[in-house]
């Protein structure tokens, strides 16, 4: 039974992965949220004893394989994000939802900046547009919904 429940976590992460790699219209590319990061951060905050930096690392490796980036880029970024999220999880967990959104916004910016640094140091010739902040904003807004949805799922399947 216990095994089944952690299985749910992996299913949500898998759905997140599918959403992440889903084709997205090029003209609205800047608005694409980081689905996988949001879902991962939720589980990190809710069940830090089940989902840890190790999980984030593995998820990062899978994302690397999917996006075709060098192996380790996303693993690195996800580990850092996981650390930042778990570092003060008890504090974050007790904040109001809008305050959590602000924190998610910061994490998302962190994600984009780290990714940008990696890409620049590997490919050299990339320019960043400030529009990527928009996707972080979307992340922040989406967090409320993801949070409530995943909490429903967690309570329904009684995962702890």
């Amino acid at each position, binding site marked *: 039974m216990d095994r089944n429940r952690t299985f749910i976590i992996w299913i949500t992460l898998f759905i997140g*992965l*599918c959403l*992440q*790699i*889903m*084709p*997205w219209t*090029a003209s609205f*590319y800047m608005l694409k949220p980081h689905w996988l990061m949001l879902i991962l951060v939720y589980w990190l905050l809710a069940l830090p*004893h089940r989902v*840890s*930096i*190790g999980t*984030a*690392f593995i998820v*990062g*490796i*899978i994302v690397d*394989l*999917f*996006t*075709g*980036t*060098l*192996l*380790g*880029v996303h*693993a*690195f970024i996800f*580990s*850092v994000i*996981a*650390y930042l999220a*778990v*570092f003060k999880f008890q504090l974050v967990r007790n904040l109001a939802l809008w305050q959590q959104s602000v924190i998610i916004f910061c994490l998302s910016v962190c994600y984009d900046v780290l*990714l*940008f640094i990696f*890409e620049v140091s*590997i*490919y050299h*010739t*990339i320019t960043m547009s400030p529009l*990527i902040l928009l996707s972080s904003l979307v992340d922040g807004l989406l967090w409320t919904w993801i949070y409530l949805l995943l909490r429903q799922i967690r309570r329904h399947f009684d995962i702890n």
Partner: protein
Amino acid sequence: MKLLFSKQSPLSVQLFIALVLALVLLGLDISYQPFKTVRYYLDTLISPLYYISNSPRVTADKLYEMSKSRDELAIEKSKLTEELLSKKSDLLLLEHLRHENNRLRELLGSPLRHDEHKMAAQVLLADTDPYVYQIVLNKGKSDGVYVGQPVVDGKGIVGQIYEIAQTTSRAILVCDYQHAIPVQVLRNDIAMVAVGNGCSNELTLDFLPNNVDIKVGDILVTSGLDGRFPEGYPVAIVSSVKLDINDSTPVISATPTADLKRLRYLLLLWGEGEKKDNGS
């Protein structure tokens, strides 16, 4: 894994181990060649997921096909038959021209041009990363796909194969920052290199002669000098010719002819040499 990331070890230690592992993997992937086989197996391992993630689109397509009425299909069919007929008549003429061309080439003593072997492939995944312009195709090593293989669509060169797995492969587009392709102007055979500049921008032309005869609207085709892309496929159309004010070198950009934003069905080309290797 369980030991390294167990609850007992403090967070900072976990983070440290994860980061070191990630950096080691990065280093291996960049500079250690045998690691490519590991990556090949990992890519093969996850390739079923591509089909799963692609399934919503496939079912949507199927539903769309099913919702077409009989009349619509009949109209579509007559249109396609008409098109096929006109293409066939073009081909008749082309066959004659090819014979003539081969005879002329024989007279000149230059090597004959051979037909390439082609295979249709479907795009499983596109636009995943805002900085990397790659697509995943549903043909892999088992179909004889090799790294560096040219990929074209109905309008021109799309890119080349970059990584292969057992049943899928990853192609890099001509507009990627890492990609460059040798081209020549169709009108006067001036050779140059078209460098990718991100898919939202246009290709820039590099390695130009000082006094270049090129104007807006010129068609650029592959020159075949790289030994990868066969000669004569259209790549781009010159869209602007400007002069750098500082040192009066021309700055030329070109729009790719292939519709790189909407890729669905593509063709993989096998040149003469590779065809024998794969026995296909």
